[in-house]
């Protein structure tokens, strides 16, 4: 058994065995899905409200920075000592991590919508909500997806820390491997997490293609024109896009 790398050893892929890679993978996906869902339900409406009304912008702008500055390992340790070991402290620590990128990108996406388009929609007699859901949101979708994808990547990478406070997920391979000085196990954990992150990002890119209107991306028309328009309109405020698109917490 010492000769086969941990990652390739069939026994480690046995579904029925506790702590096998597939079981840990499912737990890891569970953490990721629940966290992103809860974070999205909190951050998306707030981002829509701030982006649409323009009130409270400083919250959206500073949320990104605050979220990056807060060390997840510290927050997790704090929650565990205050509450107890279990799923709730892990969930809270990870939700705190996903709120900033979703909130900031939703806000940034709505803000970069061409004001002429909003004026035109209002002139056509659309109500505030109609403007938001039929004009601003569809145009903002590429930027919002950028934030959502950043959030997912971050949670997939950071959920590994859960194992440190007796949680499950692929972090078990890293933490147990470290405790046992089992390099193969740690490497297996690192590889599977990285692959999972890439696969999830590709899946979301696919969903983005399906959801974002061809009128925004320029697909199906004169190729590239629309995409360039979005890129150009975003380039007016590059700082905002940097903040919205790229974040890495304590992962």
């Amino acid at each position, binding site marked *: 058994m010492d000769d086969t790398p941990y990652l390739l050893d069939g026994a480690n892929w046995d579904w029925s065995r506790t702590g096998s890679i597939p079981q840990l993978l499912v737990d890891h996906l569970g953490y990721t899905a629940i966290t992103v869902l809860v974070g999205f339900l909190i951050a998306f409406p707030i981002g829509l409200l701030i982006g649409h009304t323009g009130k409270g912008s400083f919250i959206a702008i500073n949320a990104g*920075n*605050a979220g*990056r*500055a*807060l*060390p*997840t*390992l*510290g*927050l997790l*340790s*704090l929650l*565990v*000592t*205050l509450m107890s070991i279990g799923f709730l402290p892990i969930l809270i620590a990870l939700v705190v991590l996903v709120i900033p990128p979703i909130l900031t990108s939703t806000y940034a996406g709505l803000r970069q919508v061409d004001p002429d388009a909003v004026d035109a929609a209002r002139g056509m007699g659309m109500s505030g909500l109609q403007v938001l859901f039929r004009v601003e949101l569809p145009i903002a979708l590429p930027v919002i997806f950028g934030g959502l994808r950043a959030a997912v*990547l971050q949670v*997939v*990478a*950071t959920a*590994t*820390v859960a194992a*440190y*406070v007796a949680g499950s997920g692929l*972090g078990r391979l*890293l*933490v147990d*491997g*470290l405790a046992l000085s089992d*390099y193969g196990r*740690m*490497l297996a*954990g*690192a590889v599977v*997490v*990285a692959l999972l*992150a*890439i696969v999830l*990002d590709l899946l979301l890119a696919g969903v983005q293609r399906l959801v974002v209107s061809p009128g925004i991306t320029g697909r199906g028309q004169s190729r590239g024109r629309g995409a360039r328009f979005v890129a150009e309109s975003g*380039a007016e405020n*590059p*700082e905002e896009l*940097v*903040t919205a698109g*790229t*974040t*890495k*917490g*304590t*992962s």
Partner: protein
Amino acid sequence: MNGISNYLSQNSSIVVDALLQHIVLAVLPLLIGVLVSLPIGYLAVRFGWLYHPILNLSGIVYSIPSLAVFVALPYVLGTRILSPVNIVVALAIYTIALMARTVADGLRSVDPALTDAATGMGYQRVRRLVEVELPLAAPVILAGVRVAAVSNISLVSVGALLGVGGLGALFTRGLQLDYTAPILVGVVLSVALAAVADLLIVLFQRAVTPWSRAGQGV
């Protein structure tokens, strides 16, 4: 609150040491990463076909969990697992992954009319890059440096799981002892450190881009 002042008075040297180690472990990779990413970002603009491969590669690098990189690096570099070199190299890699793209985007944001004007005035490529393009790209590049600095400061603490993590050592100790005070002190200092670093970079940006305030009636 009483518990915290109690803890601080009895462990001040531990906390100060952790803080200093934290600063070194975050700033060193930031400097290395920024210096390395400048030529990479430049190449991505100079040779346009490199832009997307570099973008994709940095995206992949950025998605690898830091804990995994911290434990894998000793075997790649031949360092000891407890060596601070692992943390510095890992964070430098993340900084490069973030900054290469930002440098490229910053250089691309420079108005071609301005670089043409510089060329017309007889600027050679290197001088034009240093004296015209880099200063004009500074706001975008420094926005990236702010992100990298803040996320580096927060990432250092993960190193504590391997025994080298600056303020992160306070998290692991507090967790082992079920003692809130050191964790709270560590979190507050870590966030404060990030805020100070962010502020310093903003001040630096104001100093090197005086023209950006010219229109505001200063």
